């Protein structure tokens, strides 16, 4: 073990200057991270923003091009083998065996993590019960529904009671009810002391994390508690509703004092700079009186739009 002590106390993951190239593409660009133990830490970002690559770098599946990674006291990627016992990893796509039953899959995972005797029996029984798989334990994994598969994948990832759980878009293939149940289970695990790193592109999920990192084209553009991120928005949110949203958006894009705009269904979310005294009035002047303009509570979507826009503007400058 080559622990430098950075991840011995409260900190489970410590990352400095992490970058990874794939040919000419910089998938992860100079990321710094400190992730506390016992918390749910979210990675929010669109597809291709580097979420999966970062997670794979953290568990030693990929080798970093640059930077230092320390996980639970182990230096990556050198100590990857020693770390494997203490982490659980849930891949983006279902990666258990479709032609084995739920119980057989768990038995196989138990063997692979060398669980023995009573402990092994107990863990398998516990996981079957906790993740509501008992009644269907003899069913083959290939015939399960999306929600059942996801519960099985989580059960397999936590069977050996890992200290750190890495979840790569775990809810991308399940319905909203299953997503809510899944998150309740994650909170149970976090309360029991497990550190959880979860990537998502759902705003409602991101909002439930203790702490959130927003990734955009490989860069870390925001990193704080969701509530603080929303409070610290660089402006106030105004919502515009009406017929000609596209025209309104164009007008807003050229106007002064507007940081960003984003379409959200039938509404236009507008971020107005703090310097503007009456944001609602300011926007109404630009889009015209026939539009319905109201001030709104900041959401994570606004944070996401604002932080990715800043990034783009910084690049254009």
């Amino acid at each position: 073990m080559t622990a430098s002590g950075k991840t011995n106390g409260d900190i489970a993951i410590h990352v400095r200057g992490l970058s990874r190239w794939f040919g000419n593409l910089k998938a992860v660009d100079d990321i710094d991270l400190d992730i506390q133990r016992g918390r749910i830490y979210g990675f929010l970002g669109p597809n291709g923003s580097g979420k999966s690559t970062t997670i794979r770098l953290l568990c030693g599946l990929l080798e970093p091009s640059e930077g230092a990674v320390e996980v639970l006291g182990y230096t990556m990627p050198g100590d990857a083998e020693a770390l494997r016992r203490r982490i659980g990893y849930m891949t983006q796509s279902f990666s258990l065996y479709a032609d084995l039953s739920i119980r057989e899959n768990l038995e196989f995972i138990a063997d692979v993590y060398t669980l023995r005797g009573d402990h092994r029996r107990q863990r398998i029984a516990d996981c079957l019960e906790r993740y509501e798989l008992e009644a269907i334990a003899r069913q083959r994994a290939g015939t399960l529904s999306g929600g059942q598969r996801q519960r099985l994948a989580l059960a397999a990832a936590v069977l050996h009671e890992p200290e750190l759980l890495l979840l790569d878009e775990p809810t991308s293939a399940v319905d909203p009810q299953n997503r809510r149940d899944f998150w309740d289970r994650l909170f149970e695990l976090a309360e029991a002391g497990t550190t959880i790193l979860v990537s998502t592109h759902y705003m409602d999920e991101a909002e439930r994390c203790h702490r959130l990192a927003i990734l955009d084209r490989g860069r870390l553009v925001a990193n704080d508690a969701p509530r603080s991120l929303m409070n610290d928005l660089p402006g106030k949110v105004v919502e515009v509703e009406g017929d000609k949203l596209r025209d309104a958006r164009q007008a807003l894009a050229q106007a002064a004092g507007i940081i960003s705009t984003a379409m959200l269904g039938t509404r236009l979310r507008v971020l107005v700079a703090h310097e503007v005294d009456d944001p609602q009035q300011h926007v109404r002047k630009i889009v015209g009186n026939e539009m319905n303009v109201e001030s709104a509570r900041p959401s994570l979507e606004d944070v996401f739009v604002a932080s990715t826009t800043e990034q783009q503007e910084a690049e254009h400058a």
Partner: protein
Amino acid sequence: MRDALLRFRGILFKEFKQLRRDRLTFGMIIGVPLLQILLFGYAIELDVRHLAAGVADQANTQVSRRYLRELEGSQVIDIIRAYPGPAALQQALDRGDINVGVFLPGDFEERRERGQPVGQLLVNGSDPTIEGIARQLSNAPLPGDSQPPSRLVTRTFYNPERRSEVQIVPGLIGVILNLTMVLFTAVAIVRERERGNLELLITTPVKTGELMLGKLVPYILIGLVQVTIILLVGKWLFEVPMRGSLVDLYLASGLFIAATLSLGLLISTLAKTQFQAMQLTVFTFLPAILLSGFMFPFEGMPKIAQWIAEVIPLTHFVRLVRGILLRAASLDSFALELSALTAFTLAMLLATRLRFHKRLD
């Protein structure tokens, strides 16, 4: 060590469970050897008979007619048509109407008296077996002559009836193992990669060696089952003798299976998809079947082909299995073959170990 054993056992059991459920693979384990041995045993008859033949008998004497009847009586040729002359015979050969043409010129009788060649044999040389067989016709004695005095009497050992099944079935054990074993392992690992299982496996404490062994052992057993099937069918249907020690035969087979499996493993680290794995398997299978001495005699090949053949496991196994089954040779006399197979296996495993990382990049 106990941990390693437990993980290895876990993979092994999982592999067996999956195999039991994979009906197609299971069918191939039994079906491929059965089909191949029936195909090779019955359809591939190297004693070619009843070749379509044309004749042009310009002499048309009593002796020449009798001579042609005797040629036909050998059952090697069936005379299907008479042609006016050698040119017509050649055209018929070109068209593919006949494989053999017999031309007897008008001065047949004079040539016979002078002891000169009495005629011409036109042979379709595009097929090696037809050519070889038809050439034997030129040795047929003329009517009225005494048997030409032979200076040597041939005695064929191990296969006195010169039945081709006896030569083919032992080698067929190797050919079938070579095909199925390489394919099964190559596909088995690539399939896990395609389905995403491997991404999960490499984040677990499983070691590369445990994974590789856990994948190989079930197929070694399957290979031995196939050997048994071919031996039993060979004995019952084709009366292939089993003169040597069965223990030696299974030991040699086990070593050969290990060699083919390790080749399959290496292929699995090179191929990205199951289709590529199959292509690579066929790519390695063709030289094996052509150069190993299974189909064509090793001694007849050019030096460079012989060198290549020495690297191919099937070459060594064909020698081993023919030696053990037909000549009752013991393993002691095959030190070279055994060490070649061992070296091949170790080299393949080493190459696989170097190529297989527990990483995705």
